[in-house]
């Protein structure tokens, strides 16, 4: 038995003795003991002490009554790689500090750590910074909601200190969640060089950080310019992002090939007035489909597809439709669909592009027009048949199978437009 899930099993009285002694000799390496709040703090201490004699690698202890002493016992499980301690709110900042110091002194190298919804305080944050600086193995770190209004929450200064400490570390995370905290503008500015140095960062959660102003969020744009930028998800919902920040983001994402999700729901001011208006939506709309020319449409961002859950129709134009197109993996077809839908729709077929094309390009262009329908297509998919029909009507010679008697059209005067197919 390698993986054992005993989540919310209502075990109590002798669980520490029964389970602990069995696990000591068992082969279990992945153990889920979350939400067993029937086990008292004292029992947790005994059970976690027993686990220090095991070779557990992955331990889920979310939502339990682990206290400072229990946490100290947990720090002696030297084989741990993944640890989830979400919402163990009995633990004090002092307990967290001792735990982080113990883990560091024992040289435990975690890959995943979740301490969200705990109150580690500035005291714990300082020790966490020191620990993380020594933990080059860590890939996933969840620090969601560890500020709050509680006196034991990390303050804005605590975050600044933590980021300053980490700026001299080699931390290279893949997933960092800092949502629902009290990170302010200065904190954002200190965070930017930290995340910009990370080559592996795929997901960054900064949502619900209401202390940061539009100025602070605009500073985050420096991260988008980082040569190491490999982010796939950036969560900024319920933050004070305004049009200027969104426009700057849109400029910098024009050639980005990684970011799939930029969640910006619920960006409102103190009076519940939306901070993102027509200007911001238009910038995003142009990002995913620049309609000014065929080549600009072709060169638009075809990666970003997740921005908002419930679009206000009057503000977003074709943004939602283009984001849906971007959900498809075949980016060549995404570009083709945007061109067909924008420049060659039934109402406004822009035939001049084809009529002025060099003759030798025409077979490629016709093949491009006549590509078959995609299976499992997400979003609107239009056929090129209407365009083909219009082309046949305008250039009947091309489709005439009877012997040629007319003079070939002059090639030299044709406009060169190359559609890369």
């Amino acid at each position: 038995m390698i993986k054992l899930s005993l989540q919310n099993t209502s075990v109590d009285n002798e669980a520490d003795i029964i389970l602990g002694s069995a696990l000591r000799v068992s082969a279990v390496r992945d153990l889920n003991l979350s939400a067993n709040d029937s086990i008292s703090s004292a029992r947790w201490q005994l059970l976690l002490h027993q686990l220090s004699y095991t070779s557990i690698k992955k331990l889920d202890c979310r939502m339990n009554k682990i206290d400072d002493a229990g946490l100290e016992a947990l720090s002696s499980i030297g084989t741990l790689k993944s640890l989830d301690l979400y919402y163990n709110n009995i633990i004090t900042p002092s307990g967290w500090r001792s735990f982080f110091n113990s883990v560091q002194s024992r040289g435990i190298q975690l890959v995943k750590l979740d301490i969200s919804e705990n109150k580690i305080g500035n005291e714990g944050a300082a020790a966490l910074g020191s620990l993380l600086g020594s933990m080059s193995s860590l890939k996933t770190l969840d620090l969601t909601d560890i500020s709050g209004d509680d006196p034991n929450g990390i303050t804005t200064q605590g975050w600044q200190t933590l980021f300053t400490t980490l700026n001299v570390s080699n931390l290279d995370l893949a997933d960092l969640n800092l949502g629902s905290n009290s990170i302010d503008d200065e904190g954002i500015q200190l965070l930017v060089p930290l995340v910009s140095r990370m080559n592996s960062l795929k997901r960054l959660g900064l949502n619900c950080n209401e202390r940061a102003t539009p100025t602070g969020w605009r500073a985050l744009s420096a991260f988008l310019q980082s040569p190491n930028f490999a982010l796939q998800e950036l969560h900024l919902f319920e933050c004070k992002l305004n049009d200027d920040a969104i426009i700057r983001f849109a400029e910098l994402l024009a050639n980005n090939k990684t970011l799939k999700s930029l969640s910006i729901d619920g960006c409102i001011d103190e009076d519940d007035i939306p901070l993102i208006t027509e200007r911001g939506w238009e910038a995003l709309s142009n990002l995913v489909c620049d309609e000014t020319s065929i080549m600009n449409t072709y060169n638009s961002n075809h990666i970003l597809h997740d921005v908002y859950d419930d679009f206000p129709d009057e503000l977003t134009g074709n943004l939602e439709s283009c984001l849906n197109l971007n959900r498809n993996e075949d980016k060549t077809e995404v570009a083709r669909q945007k061109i067909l839908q924008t420049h060659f729709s039934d109402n406004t077929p822009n035939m001049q592009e084809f009529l002025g094309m060099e003759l030798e390009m025409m077979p490629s262009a016709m093949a491009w027009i006549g590509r078959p329908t995609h299976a499992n297509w997400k979003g609107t998919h239009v056929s090129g048949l209407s365009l083909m029909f219009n082309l046949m009507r305008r250039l009947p010679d091309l489709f005439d199978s009877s012997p040629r008697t007319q003079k070939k059209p002059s090639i030299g005067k044709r406009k060169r437009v190359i559609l890369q197919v």
Partner: protein
Amino acid sequence: MEDTNNNQDNDNIDIDHNDNNDISDTDSNDEDAYTLGGDNYTVYTMLDKDTFHRLKQNDTSIIDIEVALHFIYGSFFFNSVDWKEDGDYIASNAHLKSLRITHHDGRPNGLGMQGRNLTFRQQLQEFFSCIYRNNSIKHISFNSIYIDINDFWGVLIEGLSGHPSLDSLDISHGKLGSKGCEALGKVLEHTRCKLKDLRLSYCQLDDEGLGLLCDGLVGNSTKEIIP
């Protein structure tokens, strides 16, 4: 031999930084379950006649089946009229990897099987015997099947002893009782036990049940593993 096996398995522990360990994980009857996998991953929520036929023909595309037990007008029925045939088709398919038994019932407390007649209990157990007869199934889920007939789980689990292919078992929300825990302990102790993943979330284990289960866990760790 045991250590060698354990070390090998340890390397396979999933410490995926993107995994989702939400507390609701055990309630996995969501849409994601139907969209996992690639072209060869097929999920059927209803065992219709076409599925029966394809099962019977050993169709290689059917590797995951969800059998929905319905409860209407005071009695259970299987999607097919002939539940024995359902079981036989499942038993004889050599490509099936995953079998998930769920229930479709509008009532918030689930099936509430207590007091159902003996005939129906035998029908259920006979249907479940298809699992014992199938040699390819790796994962079985009885997640959220609220059957609390006395000794039902004990008899059902006991039949899994020495299953030749089963390596993952999910009985979350099951009211195992001491008989069920004892049977599970025996399954773990069996010399041919291949179980690597056991999910007992929300099973309301008491000290006696936990002790019986842990006896099996200890036995499981010391048994000689037969490849």
